[in-house]
């Protein structure tokens, strides 16, 4: 004990070294074949799921489309039809609304109505933090979720600055959606217990519409339910990358703002503030 420092001697024979090295190489190879290789139990998963990239984007290469939305707070009357249509079309449970509508006051004390879908940030915190790439950014600007991959850790929920994410704390009851069929018919499956969910800009309509040669934002069947149902046309949807699209013109002609721009999230949803200001 008198000697304070004693070097720990590493005694490895060549044989030991070969055994350890062989085991290491063997386990790497085994891991590789078992996870992504031939013996993988995940082999039946779609390749796009494994790679986590936007294969679902059809002929749309990056840069052709960037889906976005303008919400005109000056026009909005707070009827919350968008919320109902959304909840019916996407079969969203009560209390887990993807699209919220709330009453607000501006600094002058006047009431206006504020609504918020998922903002489909181009630099989305939820995409970055997801440990399994269950949330990813498609090349058409949509932030989408793979419900089959989500492990339900809820880090995305914690990281989203806009409270746009909802977690399925329990299994849904059969008849918990009062908005069906008055406000729409579900077009997507219910999410299972234990995964996070969020607004998709009605991705099912966009993808199907593009396949059928429709223009999302102009043709009814290819446009998000909330946009279609709005009685005062407060919501405009379309391709931000097309300078001739309706949405691009609206943004050009109006002063717009985006939420919490200082966070650097670069959202795809633009707001036109009320005329009397915020």
């Amino acid at each position, binding site marked *: *004990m008198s000697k*304070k*420092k*004693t*070097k*720990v001697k*590493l005694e*490895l024979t060549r044989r*030991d070294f070969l055994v*350890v090295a062989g085991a290491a190489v063997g386990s790497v190879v085994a891991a590789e074949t078992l*996870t*992504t290789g031939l013996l993988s139990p*995940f082999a039946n998963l779609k390749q796009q799921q*494994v790679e*986590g990239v936007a294969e679902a984007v059809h002929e749309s290469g990056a840069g052709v489309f960037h889906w976005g939305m303008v919400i005109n*707070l000056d026009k909005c009357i707070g009827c919350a039809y968008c919320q109902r249509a959304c909840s019916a079309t996407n079969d969203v449970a009560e209390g*887990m609304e993807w699209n919220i509508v*709330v*009453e*607000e*006051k*501006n*600094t002058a004390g006047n009431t206006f109505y*504020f609504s918020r879908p998922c903002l489909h940030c181009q630099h989305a*915190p939820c995409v*970055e*933090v*997801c*440990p*399994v*790439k*269950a949330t990813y950014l498609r090349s058409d600007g949509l932030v989408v979720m793979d419900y089959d*991959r*989500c*492990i*339900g*850790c*809820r*880090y995305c*929920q*914690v*990281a*989203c*600055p*806009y*409270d746009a*994410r909802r*977690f*399925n*704390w*329990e*299994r849904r009851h059969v008849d918990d959606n009062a908005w069906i069929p008055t406000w729409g018919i579900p077009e997507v499956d219910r999410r299972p*217990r*234990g*995964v996070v969910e969020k607004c998709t800009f009605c991705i099912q309509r966009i993808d199907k519409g593009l396949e059928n040669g429709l223009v999302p934002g102009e043709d009814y069947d290819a446009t998000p339910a909330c946009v279609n149902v709005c009685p005062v046309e407060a919501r405009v949807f379309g391709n931000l990358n097309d300078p001739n699209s309706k949405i691009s013109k609206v943004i050009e002609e109006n002063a717009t703002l985006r*939420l*919490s721009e200082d*966070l650097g999230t670069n959202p795809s949803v633009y707001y036109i*503030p009320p005329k009397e200001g*915020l």
Partner: protein
Amino acid sequence: MATTTLARKPSVWTPGFLAWLGLLGVLVVIGLVSAFWVFVRGLVLTNMTDIVPWGLWITIDLSAIALGAGAFTLSAFVYLGGYKKYHSIVRLAVFIGFIGYTSALLTLVMDIGRPDRFWHPWAYWNVHSVLWEITWCITIYLTIMILEFLPVVTDLKFFDRWPWVRKVAHILHKAAPVLALLGVMVSLLHQSSLGATYGIVKSRPIWFKPSMPIMFILSAVAVGPALTMAVAFVTEMITGKRRVDHQILFNIARFSGFALLVYAYIKIWDLASVTYYGRMPAVNEALSLLYRQTAYNFGFWFGEIIIGLVIPIILFLVPRFNRNPKYLVLGAVCAVIGVIFNRWDITVTGLYVPLEYSPGTQYQLPAGTYFPGLVEWGVAIGIVGYALLMLTLGTRFLPLFGDPKPRSQAGQGD
């Protein structure tokens, strides 16, 4: 080979020991029943909500991993620093680390919504995610600890029957320094990434700061060895056998004391720069809300600073106290409570602050409220039961105090 196992007296099962095991068994059963209910009904049974989606279980994860840090710190002492005399406590430290990490993983499996998909981080990589990196590091480190620990288990008499198992384990044992080195690197990485889990989230004003990873690793490095030291002392008090040289334990306590001082130093400057001089509007608002509506201030000053730092620093560093095992154990308990307070304050209180993204003035998310539900406490009790059970059985039956020289004395004095 058979002589390497320790000779033990048969009178292990004293009534007191059995009663203690029975108590721990009850705790574990409570945990199992709660876990079963959560698997059947889902996380709706917990009191977590969309506003506060992380709660007691995440706090346990973080605390357990921080408390397991003694393993890598003391391994670094021995294998990197070359302080070979600390070798006699490394086994215990690694064992405690193993318990901490398995506790954390068990709680994590409870906490995720889809436990059946626990393997997804290995199959689907998001290399940009801190949580992905943490999952990888923790599982790799757990594997390393198991490999490091295998020779200890195979030294049991039980394995006399299969000498080849022992042989394989001893080949691994020769690689122990390499494994320990790898373990130290991986630990450094994920202990700080756990802080980064919070530190990188820009939408949460009181989380978003670069000091977060540093404070996490410092607190872990300070408290982990202290816990190991305390366990060694408590084992000695119960069994009456001096397994580890007291001087080593005193040194560890002193080290912990200094590490806590460093941690306190950075913590105070962090407080000053973020809240006092920083005055970012969001941070100010968040803190004033927390001061008004929650016990954050009390938790911070009383739980983290007084209990977690001041008391243990005094007990570990003042000569009047730091030669007395009882004070040192008390100090370690305080430091452990401080770490748990800290992880709770960060995780849960951080989530209380409502997100501010609305352009208007009226609509605000309500400030979060959260108190763990019955099943959450149940699982927590079960985890504590598991940890104590492992510790009891380990210290009783495994040659944890693997001092190479006084092996002949180890079995005496029951």
